[in-house]
């Protein structure tokens, strides 16, 4: 993870709009900027566009209009071969986990390290350690199909944070776990945040947001975003 001075914007959206194909705009005139090292909850009703906004942030989609600045780079002007390096600085917890079913939990979590060419000795040192931290020390070699929903979610979170990302984006990361695990995961995110990672968690769990009310909130409503605390 690179050390960025806190306060510098890690991601910035200027007049961003998004439409799928020829359909109507699902996101309109999105304007916000997230300082480096900040922690945000992305809230909004189901279908408000939280996942779409996250996809724009992790470069899974290109905006129909407007400008996305990520790590001080205008994405529209960034060369294609430079994008993987930007993506490696982002950790993503997908709502549907997107674990690779034919790989073990260990190999799933190791993916971000392996695509970077990290040595296997390092992989086998750090990955079991992290899986142990999320309570899956006994399931290193388990295939995702044999894990419960909550266990899969923790594997997905471990995969997102193993590379110590500058930006962590999580789409409903506590949706399938009980309150105790949810709190534990959020404390993990806070720990990462203290180390400098900017965290954005999309959730509709108002109870959870209330318990971490000291963090700012991005609220999506009618296709636009309202930034507040």
């Amino acid at each position, binding site marked *: 993870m690179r050390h960025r001075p806190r306060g510098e914007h890690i991601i910035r959206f200027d007049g961003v709009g998004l439409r799928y194909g020829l359909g109507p705009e699902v996101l309109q005139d999105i304007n916000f900027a997230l300082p480096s090292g900040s922690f945000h909850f992305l809230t909004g009703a189901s279908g408000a566009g939280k996942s779409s906004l996250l996809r724009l942030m992790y470069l899974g989609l290109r905006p129909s209009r407007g400008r996305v600045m990520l790590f001080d780079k205008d994405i529209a002007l960034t060369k294609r*071969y430079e994008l*993987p390096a930007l*993506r490696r600085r982002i950790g993503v917890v997908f709502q549907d986990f*997107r674990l*690779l079913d034919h790989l073990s939990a260990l190999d799933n979590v190791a*993916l971000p390290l392996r*695509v970077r060419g990290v040595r296997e000795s390092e992989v086998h040192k750090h990955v079991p350690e992290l899986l142990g931290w999320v309570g899956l020390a006994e399931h290193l070699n388990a295939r995702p199909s044999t894990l419960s929903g909550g266990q899969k979610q923790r594997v997905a979170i471990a995969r997102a944070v193993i590379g110590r990302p500058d930006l962590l984006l999580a789409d409903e990361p506590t949706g399938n776990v009980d309150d105790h695990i949810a709190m534990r995961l959020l404390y993990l995110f806070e720990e990462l945040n203290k180390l400098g990672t900017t965290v954005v968690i999309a959730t509709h769990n108002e109870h959870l947001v209330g318990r971490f009310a000291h963090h700012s909130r991005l609220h999506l409503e009618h296709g636009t975003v309202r930034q507040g605390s």
Partner: protein
Amino acid sequence: MFGRRSELPLKGDATSKFLPWLVALMVYLSAVAVAAVFVLNGLIDRWDRDVAGTLTVQVMPVPGESGDALTEERVRQAVELIRRTHGVEAVRALDKRQITALLEPWLGSADVVKDLPLPRLIDVSVDPGVRLDLGLLAERLGKAVPGVSLDDHRVWLSRLINLSRTTGWVAIAIVVLIGCVTSATVIYATRTGMAVNRGIIEVLHLIGARDDYIARQFADRAFALGFAGGVLGLALAVPTLTMIGWAARRVEGGFLPQLTVSLPGWVVVALLPLAAALLAMLTARLTVHGTLARMP
């Protein structure tokens, strides 16, 4: 290459089942075509070598009762004139019995052909280091001896060589065509593999895998399948070529020239599986790059 880690579950996909068989067929056909090219080149070289430095002079038979004697006299005059020409090493007039023997394989027993008005032939050996003016020799022969013509073999040989070369180019075109078909199949197989593994590819893409990281996994698989198929095709082609060579030798008897693949020919045939594997690998890699370029 084969030991490298792969996150894509390509081992059990449908491509693994049909691609090696298809490459095997392609390598088999290519091996036969390549062997044909080398056999033809060998033939051309041999013909060229055999007839280089030789001429044939033909003396037409004189009709009538004293025709034989007159023809014999003309042959003698022609032999004398040729022998005096600079650059000629040896002159040998074939007698009627020898000519009849030459025609026997085509026209049957000597009894049938002995009464035919056959031209007399004079076999001439020329020093390869001397540039003989064939036009001048033909003119002198024509003036001195009526009914004489000169054949330096190059006319019919050049036609034969042209035919052989054309056949050789056709064989090369067939090999190129086979390469194109193999590439098209690999493109189809790779695209199918990408569609089947789309979800996994997206995850790899989003966590920062470079396009070549993904392409390399498809390329390695295509190489392995292509090589396996190529070796199978080669294993089938070798007995076929050996059998063709054996069958050709059996009907040889001076009628068919020796049909053998030279050592360089066998080397090229042996390299075909590797060439097929490399073609499959390159095609798969380019296909993946082309498809990934459309992702955000």
